[in-house]
């Protein structure tokens, strides 16, 4: 028997899972069009590699992340790219984002796939790249690119690989049904991940309210080192931090990630996707999504193509628009309400709840906090929700932060138990948002200050250099005066006069060089500060540089002529040239800086 630990607090909300487990996973039909957001993962958004009008095959890559963290997007079926537009995407704010719209041709023709039967023959990097190329990002939570998660920092030894099948949120049964029906694929995917990570332990954790899934996983893992661990049903046992605590007794340090303590958590759906990416060569183009709630007559799980509009899924499940009161994407504890049923299923969409009013009723109006402490009693993170609420409401954000506001996982347990029905989580989100905004503003102000100071410094330096130049010129003039006087006193030889001329030219040259160097460094300092503070405009900078170069050339040729002719305006021209050299230098620096900055930004 594996040793288990416990986590503080937690609740037992009504499970409401049976509605959607009575039917096997059904394949969802092809919708009229698929909407594929370019950003379904955490990291950089993918960039389209197709154009409207292109014909694509099922499984073909249609967008990829060129630089930075992220995974590609693939065509879930064959068809025509109908457009690349900003459309509503699944997000709590109901925002719109760039999406590729695909009109299926109905043939569902696969592109050429390259399955690998024996991944052991590849090296680990190649398998990780395969996982990235398959567009796999975490399918349980936030959608973190799986290949990145499977590459923890080298100095961290992975002791435990956890496959999270707890699925503690009410209503959702996508993982449950996946485990029941696809246990072998899960085991295969888990094995691949274990091969990459080489953990000491490999654990599949399942809540004890899923006996069928437990049975199926036990069978699939028979004879392997994988442990199937049954944990007590208590929300939020499936929260990554809580699950790690239950299974290992360790806590993820505040602000850290599980890999810091040698733990990697993956979702069961992700394991299936990994298995398919390797053994079948298939990218992630579909997922199991639960459609449930009293507002649908045939609740259940659907094997859904990514990009399928929610409205299509609802129709398949026997949706009655008259009855429902709210539509929730995700579970009733942490999900968010939808305004629009046109939003598509994405890689992280595990559940859609069409709830009627009696089912998930509108909470009664907020009453004053009676400090009953039930929230603190139930908080799995051992925060003081009531004090957090107090400070958030009073906009006393320092204190809220001091009470570890940012450790709140927004599990909703505190709001769930609050007898005064205070929407506590809403207050925390508000406070977190405000603090982040403040920090961003502070950063901006700091940058502006740095920029200002750099400018001040540059101006001062320039002033100093000007002064220096002025003094040098004065000295040179004085010397020349002396020499002239001496010459006037004795007869002038031709050779002397020649010498005198070349000496002067050399002096001018020297001063010119000095100026070039000095102005160069000053300009560099200034442009560095400026470039780091602003988004650079490469085009404008290039134009500037060219202009400056052209001007410099003219000036230099003029100077040459003047020297040859020993004209009076040599000094003036020399100054003008120096100024232009300066300008060119600065423009060049700005341009390279800007290019570098763009590169690093893209790299981040």
């Amino acid at each position, binding site marked *: 028997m594996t040793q288990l630990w416990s986590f503080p607090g937690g609740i037992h909300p009504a499970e409401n899972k049976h509605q959607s487990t009575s039917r096997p996973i059904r394949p969802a039909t092809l919708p009229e069009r698929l909407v594929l957001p370019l950003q379904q993962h955490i990291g950089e958004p993918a960039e389209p590699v197709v154009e409207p009008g292109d014909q694509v095959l099922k499984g073909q890559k249609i967008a990829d992340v060129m630089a930075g963290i992220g995974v590609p997007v693939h065509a879930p079926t064959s068809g025509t790219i109908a457009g690349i537009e900003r459309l509503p995407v699944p997000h709590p704010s109901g925002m719109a984002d760039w999406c590729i719209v695909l009109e299926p041709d109905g043939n569902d023709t696969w592109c050429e796939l390259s399955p690998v039967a024996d991944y052991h023959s590849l090296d680990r990097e190649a398998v990780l790249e395969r996982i990235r190329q398959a567009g796999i990002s975490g399918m349980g939570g936030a959608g973190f690119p799986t290949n990145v998660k499977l590459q923890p920092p080298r100095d961290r030894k992975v002791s435990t690989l956890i496959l999270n099948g707890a699925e503690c949120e009410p209503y959702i049964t996508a993982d449950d049904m996946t485990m029941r029906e696809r246990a072998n694929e899960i085991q295969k995917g888990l094995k691949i991940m274990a091969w990459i990570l080489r953990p000491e332990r490999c654990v599949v954790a399942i809540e004890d309210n899923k006996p069928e899934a437990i049975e199926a996983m036990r069978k699939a893992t028979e004879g392997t080192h994988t442990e199937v661990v049954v944990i007590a049903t208590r929300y939020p046992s499936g929260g990554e931090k809580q699950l790690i*605590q239950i299974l290992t007794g360790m806590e993820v340090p505040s602000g850290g990630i599980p890999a810091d303590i040698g733990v990697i958590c993956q979702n069961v759906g992700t394991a299936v996707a990994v298995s398919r990416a390797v053994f079948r060569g298939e990218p992630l183009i579909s997922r199991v999504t639960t459609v449930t709630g009293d507002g649908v007559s045939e609740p259940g799980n659907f094997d859904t193509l990514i990009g399928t509009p929610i409205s299509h899924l609802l129709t398949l499940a026997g949706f009655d628009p008259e009855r429902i009161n709210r539509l929730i994407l995700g579970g*009733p504890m942490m999900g968010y309400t939808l305004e629009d049923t046109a939003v598509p299923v994405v890689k992280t969409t595990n559940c859609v709840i069409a709830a009627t009013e009696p089912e998930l009723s509108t909470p009664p109006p907020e009453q004053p906090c009676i400090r009953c402490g039930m929230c603190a009693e139930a908080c799995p993170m051992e925060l003081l929700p009531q004090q957090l609420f107090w400070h958030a409401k009073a906009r006393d954000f320092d204190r809220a932060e001091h009470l570890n506001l940012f450790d709140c996982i927004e599990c909703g347990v505190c709001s769930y138990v609050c007898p*005064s029905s205070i929407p506590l989580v809403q207050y925390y989100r508000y406070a977190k948002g405000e603090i982040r905004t403040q920090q961003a503003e502070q950063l901006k102000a700091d940058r502006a200050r740095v920029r200002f100071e750099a400018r001040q410094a540059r101006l001062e330096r320039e002033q100093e250099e000007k002064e220096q130049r002025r003094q040098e010129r004065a000295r040179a003039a004085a010397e020349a005066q002396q020499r002239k006087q001496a010459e006037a006193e004795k007869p002038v030889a031709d050779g002397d006069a020649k010498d005198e001329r070349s000496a002067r030219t050399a002096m001018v040259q020297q001063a010119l060089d000095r100026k070039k160097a000095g102005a160069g460094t000053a300009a560099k300092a200034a442009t560095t500060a400026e470039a780091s503070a602003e988004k650079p405009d490469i085009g404008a900078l290039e134009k500037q540089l060219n202009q400056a170069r052209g001007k410099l050339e003219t000036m230099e040729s003029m100077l040459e002529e003047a020297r040859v002719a020993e004209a009076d305006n040599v000094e003036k021209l020399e100054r003008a040239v120096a100024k232009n050299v300066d300008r060119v230098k600065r423009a060049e620096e700005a341009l390279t800086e800007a290019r570098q900055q763009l590169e690093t930004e893209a790299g981040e």
Partner: protein
Amino acid sequence: MSLVQQSSPHAHRARSTSQVMLIVMLATLPGLLAQTLFFGWGNLINVVWCVLLALGAEATMLMLRGKPVSFFLKDNTAAVTGLLLGLSLPQFTPWWVSAVAVISAIVLAKQLYGGLGANPFNPAMVGYALVLVAFPVAMTTNWAEAAMLANAPGFGETLNIIFAGQQTAVDAYTMATPLDEYKHKIASHTAQEVLQHPTFGAGVARGWEWVNGAFLLGGLALVALRIITWHIPVSLLAGLALMSLAFGANEDVYTPLSLHLLAGGTMLGAFFIATDPVSAATSHQGKLIYGACIGVLIYTIRSWGNYPDAVAFSVLLMNFAVPFIDHYTPPRTYGHHKPRRGIPGKTG
């Protein structure tokens, strides 16, 4: 199809503040029943009178403050304050004494501080302490003698005593409380002699032990229903018991532990009064400290102070300390090595 937009969580446990308060009230019923059985109708009449007054005072104040009256009255918190006062006051307390207690509890201690949730002091105890200081005689001479219902004054007579001020009749039915009796006699008598007094009866303290037992029962029900946690009552009783064992082991000098636990307002105080969430400490550790200190204070005041019972003063004193306790006893949050004590910017 009009969709509700709401932030998570979408599910809520159906237990509102008014239900919590209702459960608290129901949990006092065994105690009230025991009081009525052993001490007559006095407590019941007080409870009804105080609850009505409390609701009236609350409604008036809400109206004056321009708050929605029925919304707040429904939270049942005013009723609980009235109820607790009715249960604590001596059985034959004249109506106007109760009125002063209830009105000052609701108006001064609760509404003037901003209403529910904003009061730093336990309203019922503010009212109680006020009348105890202002009307010491009325508050010490009106305790009913423990007699089975049949021997106590009838319902009508009790009403007369309380509302018509027939204080001449009252002497026949009253008796010093066991704590009072023991405290004042032990100086000149042995424990044996003191315990001869009828107020102690055959058990620990006639009638009182049942009343305390009944409140203990109701209190345990609250713990079982997770309306309150065990921390405050247990630490309170432990604090009281430890003090008694450490300092008052000699029964010929000090009140014995059994009387401390079962002869006064101890159980009502431990489970129903000290646990008033609004004015108590919040974290587990904080609650333990808060409760233990109340226990220690109860013992201290009972043994060396002027008052025979001390729940009200002890609770109020510790109410003062709550912000301090709360600042220094936050729980250790997941993923942190130690709790963040104190206030931002200060170490701790």
